[in-house]
């Protein structure tokens, strides 16, 4: 006969079993492995000619070298990486790189100018998502082999088809798409003329301090030290575990099951930063949070309405209460840290002024409008705060939260009214954002350039012209001044309310140090991570 006692005993059996082995299961991670908790379901491919998401770029940044890399201490110039030095012809049309000797791929092959040329050829020939960063100089799959050449193993010659600012070219080469792949290894895996794309999607063939040894989508990424790299890494194996829930990352960091947490939200950070032994690292990102207003929709075609919305938002309250630590107020289209960025804050919450502007636009009683945004935290919180802010000036906002890709799809089809989104710079040069926010040379559906300005019907030939001129300006100082001028005009007339700049936050567990968080994913470096 089943008694009450035996039932209880049966249900209690499992936790007892667990407590016996608890120590083993909960032991801290071993010294030679650093475990990082991060949401990694954004990964699409690791091939530098294709990679374009946060996590895959970050991994590439640790597995590859580029010709040049931004000098992150000043943020205004680049320094040599796989290239030792370079010279520019007086007309600015030819750049000759001298390669650094002794750089070796994980295969043991020496990195030469031939690999560098091959890598850029691949980018243009494959022409995948990030391809435009290189093709925008005028390269095509027909001219690329003639214009980018390697006369010898130490020299890479790059002839530009049209005049562009040298700093612009160099910053573009410092983007993830500029990673140099091991030609011999990649071509040994070529299938049907894909230049090794299929293989490189899930492997790396670079000269960086680490190499990819395993990726299981939405589960983990494992990197191991590149034995041939000149850089001696602190921890030979990095494991990036997919932990989508921030609360779960926090728990596991506190317990020591992971060494580094990457996606904590403001309140998690506030909680952990008070505890001894944990280190909070932040780095401003080249990523902006903004509200875009579609000028093709009723009410939103008037500049006064745009300005009214900009004056209605409670930037301070949102930054201080919803986003502390993870975002800073930033009201210009260039995020702080990028060359030419303005850091003044022209807007603050002023309900009276906003109402007056709205009346001036002919809507003294306000109107109703929808706003699309990502459903995830903290965007949903910010959206609700903005909704309350705009209600104060008479604008009724209906929120339409959705999955990230759904929001993108809607904006790309120009079907949104208001939209709250993030935009990250494609490369570390002001042109990326200037073009995105200001340039709309052709507002029709056949346009060749369909970025943010086009998506919001912000058709402004004067600003577009300024973008086109700045990118050709050879004089560095003059070029910076042009971008600053653009930012000042932009905030008066553009249908974009620039709100925040993102801070990447990484929290290191007890005894862990040395992670470098960069302003763009591919500048986040693992090589110096140490475990005490």
């Amino acid at each position, binding site marked *: 006969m089943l008694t009450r006692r035996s*039932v209880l005993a049966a249900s209690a059996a499992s936790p007892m079993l667990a407590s016996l082995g608890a120590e083993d299961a909960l032991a801290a991670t071993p010294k030679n492995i650093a475990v990082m908790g991060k949401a990694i379901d954004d*990964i*699409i491919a690791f091939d530098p000619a294709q990679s374009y998401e946060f996590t895959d770029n970050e991994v590439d940044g640790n597995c590859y070298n580029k010709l040049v890399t931004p000098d992150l201490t000043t943020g205004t110039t680049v320094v040599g990486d796989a290239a030792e030095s370079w010279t520019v012809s007086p007309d600015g049309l030819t750049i000759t790189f001298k390669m650094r000797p002794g750089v070796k791929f994980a295969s043991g092959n020496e990195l030469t100018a031939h690999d560098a040329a091959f890598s850029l050829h691949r980018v243009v020939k494959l022409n995948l998502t990030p391809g435009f960063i290189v093709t925008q100089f005028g390269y095509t799959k027909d001219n690329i082999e003639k214009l980018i050449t390697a006369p010898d193993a130490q020299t890479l010659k790059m002839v530009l088809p049209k005049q562009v600012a040298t700093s612009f070219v160099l910053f573009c080469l410092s983007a993830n798409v500029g990673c140099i792949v091991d030609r011999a290894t990649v071509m040994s895996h070529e299938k049907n003329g894909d230049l090794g794309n299929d293989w490189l999607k899930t492997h790396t063939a670079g000269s960086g301090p680490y190499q990819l040894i395993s990726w299981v989508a939405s589960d983990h990424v494992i990197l191991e030290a590149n034995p041939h790299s000149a850089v001696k890494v602190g921890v030979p194996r990095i494991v990036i575990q997919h932990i989508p829930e921030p609360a779960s990352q926090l728990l596991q960091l506190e317990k020591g099951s992971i060494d580094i947490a990457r996606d904590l939200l403001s309140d998690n950070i506030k909680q952990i930063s008070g505890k001894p032994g944990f280190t909070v690292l932040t780095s401003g990102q080249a990523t902006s949070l903004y509200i875009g207003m579609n000028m093709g929709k009723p009410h939103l075609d008037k500049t006064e309405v745009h300005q009214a919305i900009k004056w209605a938002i409670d930037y301070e309250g949102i930054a201080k209460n919803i986003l502390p630590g993870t975002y800073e107020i930033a009201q210009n289209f260039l995020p702080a840290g990028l060359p030419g960025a303005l850091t003044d804050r022209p807007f603050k919450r002023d309900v009276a002024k906003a109402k007056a502007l709205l009346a001036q636009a002919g809507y003294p009683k306000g109107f109703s409008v929808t706003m699309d945004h990502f459903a995830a935290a903290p965007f949903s919180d910010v959206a609700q705060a903005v909704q309350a802010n705009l209600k104060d000036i008479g604008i009724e906002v209906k929120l339409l939260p959705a999955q990230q890709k759904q929001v993108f799809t809607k904006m790309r089809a120009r079907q949104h009214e208001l939209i709250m989104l993030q935009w990250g710079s494609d490369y570390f040069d002001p042109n990326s954002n200037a073009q995105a926010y200001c340039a709309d040379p052709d507002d029709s559906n056949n346009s060749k350039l369909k970025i943010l300005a086009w998506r919001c019907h912000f058709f402004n030939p004067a600003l577009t012209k300024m973008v086109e001129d700045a990118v050709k300006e050879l004089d560095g100082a003059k070029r910076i001044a042009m971008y600053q001028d653009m930012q000042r005009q932009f905030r008066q007339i553009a249908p974009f309310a620039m709100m925040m700049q993102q801070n990447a936050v990484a929290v290191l567990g007890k005894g862990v140090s040395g992670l470098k968080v960069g302003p763009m994913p591919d500048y986040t470096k693992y090589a110096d991570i140490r475990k005490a």
Partner: protein
Amino acid sequence: MSGRLRTLAATTASVLITLFGLTVVTFFIGRVMPIDPIVAILGDHAPPDVVARVRIELGLNRPLWYQFWIFFRNLIHLDLGRSVMTTHPVLHDIGRYFPATFELATAAMIVATLIGVPLGVLAAVRQGTRTDHIVRVFSLAGSSIPVFMLAMLSLVVFYAALGWLPGTGQVSVVYDGIAPRITGMLVIDAAITGHWNTFYNALLHLIQPALVLAYFSMAYITRMTRGFMLDALRGEYITTARAKGLSAARIVWRHAFGNIWVQLITVLALTYAGLLEGAVVTETVFSWPGLGQYLTNSLLNADMNAVLGSTLVIGVIYVFLNLLADVLYRLMDPRVR
């Protein structure tokens, strides 16, 4: 014999029709989703010329019915296409993620049965008493809490506060990739190959999600067991057994329970199918690399091949388990025979 054959043919036909319907519904739901698959493949920054080229490469510019025809034609050759997210063929992915779900669901099923059935018997024997009420509330409570809440609470209590159990994932990093992959179910693989540390670690990781899932599905098992037992205990043969002076335990287990286990098996088969559903949420909270998580991620990323493939697999399993329950019932129940 020909009657049996005809039944078999009819059953097969109805299964095939069901699966075909499943494919059609999934395909069209997928295609009307307001997510452009191109955005999922190329990201938001892709320039218009690349977008246009890839759309043609993938045949997404073709009419819907044509796309479906292509999909269906490949399906017949067991080619489910490639997943955008993982870059692998969908069939390969399913082979990779399904065993983890199977492992979790099976463990949960075992726990739910081992606890749920005795509880149900106990409640029936003590019908109307306080024991009966406590058992009922206890088992119903499990299916009244949102699974994700139960999962998160369990993490907070057993992992964070008490430290009895490990956190998320299938195994600690240290043991990852040590045991060779044979069945894909880590606990079993480790045991077969004698990697006892890995086995122990994986088992500990399995306990929490399995218990959560088990508690969630226990109510149904307990309730059905109780119901069956009440019926059985009212039977004439029980009265006879009592009259013979047999012990209470013998009457309950040998006579009453012995009569209901056939019915119970069908209940268990159906519960098992339902577990696959609960697994979707549990896997998300526990970062369990299973089919549920794979399916949800694919859905949110408009990775249609992956969505179609995994929905079909789950559908097949469901249909199969239903069929199994049916067949078992027919084969083993003397009354039906």
